[in-house]
C-alpha cells in the first residue's frame, strides 16, 4: 500500500474568540494528487491551510508528514515541504526587489548563497519573470505579483503546494496562464491543493474534492460524485458545475446516452456530441 505523504488526524483549531474554526478534520493526502478545496467564505479553508503548513498550531489532533509525527521541534520540516501561495499577493511579498523576494524562502532554509541564486534563477525562469529581477514589487501589475508569489514557493521546492484562491482577482489571460503553470507542476509530480470558489474550475481540474462547511470536512472524494450529491451541495451552499448540469440535461432529454465518462471540459462534450452525430448517421445508413 502507498503511504500518504501527509496524514492529518482529528485536527481542531479555534481562534482567540472561542469559536471553533476547524472541527475534527481528518484526511490523508497522497503524492501527486490534485485536490480542490471548496466551501463558502469562513468555512475554514484558510485556517486549514495555515495549520497544515504549521503556521497555526492546532489545539488538538496530529499531523504526520512522511511518516514523521510533527511536534514543536520539527515544525520547520512542515513549513519547508508545504508551501502556501497566499490569496493576496501584497500580504505575501515582503522584500523590495523581486530577486530578494523570491530568495527570501531559500535564504531562510539556510542554503548556500550560490544554491539560493540557482534556485531563484530557476524559479524566475519557470514563472517567466527573469527580466523582472531588479524590479520592486510595487511597480508590478496584479498578475505579475501573483507570478512572483508562485515563484516564491517554487524556489523553496516543496513537496506539496497550496494555492489559496489563486483565481480570485486574476483576469482571464492570467487565469489561463495559472492553469498552464499548474499543469507544469503536475507533470513534476507535485502534490497540489487549491482552494477556489470557481466550481467549474474545480470540476475541470481536480481529481479529488474536499468540501468544507462550518469548519468540518463534509465531503471528500471524486468531484463527479460530490457534484451529483444534492445534499452535500446544499449543505455547503454550492452549485453544480455548468458543464455537468448541461450534460445531465442532455442525457435527460435523450440527446446523449448516459456514459461512465463524464465530460470534464467543453472539448470533451463537443466530442461526445459529434460522436453521437456520426453514430446516428451510421445507424441510418445501416437501416
Amino acid at each position: 500500500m502507498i503511504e500518504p505523504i501527509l496524514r492529518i488526524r482529528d485536527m481542531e483549531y479555534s481562534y482567540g474568540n472561542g469559536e471553533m474554526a476547524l472541527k475534527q478534520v481528518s484526511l490523508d493526502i497522497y503524492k501527486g494528487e490534485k485536490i480542490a478545496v471548496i466551501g463558502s467564505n469562513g468555512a475554514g479553508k484558510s485556517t486549514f491551510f495555515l495549520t497544515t503548513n504549521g503556521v497555526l498550531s492546532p489545539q488538538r489532533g496530529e499531523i504526520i508528514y512522511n511518516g514523521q509525527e510533527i511536534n514543536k521541534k520539527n515544525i520547520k520540516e512542515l513549513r519547508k515541504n508545504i508551501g502556501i501561495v497566499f490569496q493576496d499577493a501584497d500580504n505575501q511579498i515582503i522584500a523590495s526587489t523581486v530577486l530578494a523576494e523570491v530568495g527570501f524562502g531559500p535564504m531562510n532554509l539556510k542554503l548556500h548563497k550560490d544554491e539560493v541564486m540557482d534556485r531563484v534563477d530557476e524559479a524566475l525562469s519557470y514563472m517567466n519573470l527573469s527580466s523582472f529581477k531588479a524590479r520592486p514589487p510595487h511597480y508590478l501589475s496584479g498578475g505579475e505579483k501573483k507570478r512572483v508569489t508562485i515563484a516564491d514557493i517554487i524556489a523553496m521546492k516543496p513537496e506539496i503546494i497550496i494555492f489559496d484562491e489563486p483565481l480570485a482577482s486574476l483576469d482571464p489571460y492570467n487565469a489561463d496562464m495559472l492553469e498552464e503553470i499548474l499543469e507544469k507542476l503536475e507533470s513534476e509530480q507535485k502534490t497540489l491543493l487549491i482552494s477556489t470558489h470557481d466550481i467549474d474550475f474545480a470540476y475541470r481540474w481536480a481529481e479529488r474534492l474536499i468540501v468544507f462547511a462550518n469548519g468540518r470536512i463534509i465531503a471528500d472524494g471524486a468531484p463527479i460524485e460530490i457534484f451529483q450529491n444534492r445534499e452535500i451541495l446544499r449543505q455547503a451552499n454550492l452549485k453544480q458545475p455548468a458543464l455537468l448540469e448541461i450534460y445531465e440535461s442532455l442525457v435527460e432529454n435523450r440527446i446523449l446516452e448516459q456514459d461512465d465518462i463524464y465530460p470534464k471540459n467543453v472539448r470533451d462534450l463537443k466530442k461526445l456530441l459529434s460522436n453521437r452525430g456520426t453514430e446516428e448517421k451510421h445507424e441510418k445508413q445501416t437501416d
Partner: protein
Amino acid sequence: MKIVKDGIRGSNNMFGHTHDEHFSIDCFAYKSKMNHWNPTYKVFLALVTIIMCLVLNNLFVSLFVIMAMTYLIVVKSGLNMREYISVMSIPFTFLLLATLAVGFDFSRHPAGEINMDLGYFYLITSKRSLLEMFRLFIRSYAAVSALQMMTLTTSSSEIISVLKKMHVPVIVIEMMNMIYRYIFILLELNNKMKKSAHARLGYCDFRTACYSFGSIAGNILVVSLKKAETYYNAMEARCYDGEYSFLQENKKTEGVHIAGASVFVAFLLIIWFATK
C-alpha cells in the same frame, strides 16, 4: 486625471503599475543607467564627496562638485535635465531660505553696508555677509547634490544593504526594509479609500473633508494592524525564524569606476590647493 503627463509613467512601459496621485522619486533609481554600478561604491562616492565639500570648504571645489554630480546624473544615469531640475528645486528652495538668515540681519541702527529702512528697524547686509551666504549656499547645495546622486541612482533596498554592511544594528535595518515595502501598500490603500470617499461626496465641504480624512486615517491604522498579522503569517509560512536575510545581486565594482573616483577626488584636492 493627469496620469500620462509624467515622462516616467507615460513614455515608459517598463513600470506597468502606477500610483495615480503620488509621484515618487523612488522609481528614478530603477530606471537609472547607473543602477548596475556597485551600490557600496556609489554610497561611498557620495559620502566622500560630501565630506570633501564640508571639510575643504572651498567655493571652487563645491562648484566643481555640483557640475560633476549634474554630469553623473544627467549624462551617466540618463535622467532628463528637466526632471533633475524639478527634483533639485526642493532642496534648492529650502537651502535658499535657510541661508538667507546668514546674509541678512535686522538691527535698530543702520549698521551695515547696505541698509533698508523698514520703519522701526533696518534690514541690513554687507558684501561680506552676502558672499558668506553665497559660499554657504553653494557648499551645502554641493553636498545635497552628491546625496541626490546616490538616491537617484541607487534603489532603497541597496542603500539599506550597504548600511547593513556598515554594521548598522539589525533591528534598524529590518525596520527600514519593512517600512519601505509597506509605505507603498499603505499609500495605495489610502489612495483607494480617498477615491471611494470622493465618490460618495466625502470632500464636498471643509467639515466633511476633515471628517473623511480622520476616518481614513483611523481606518488605515486598523487595517495596517490587521495586515501586520497576515504578513507575519506569510513570513512564517516561508520558514522565517526571526532573522530577515535578503538575497542581493552581486554587482562588481569596475576598475574604471574606482579610477574615476580617484581622479575625481584628486582633482578636488588640486582645485583646493590652487585656490587656497
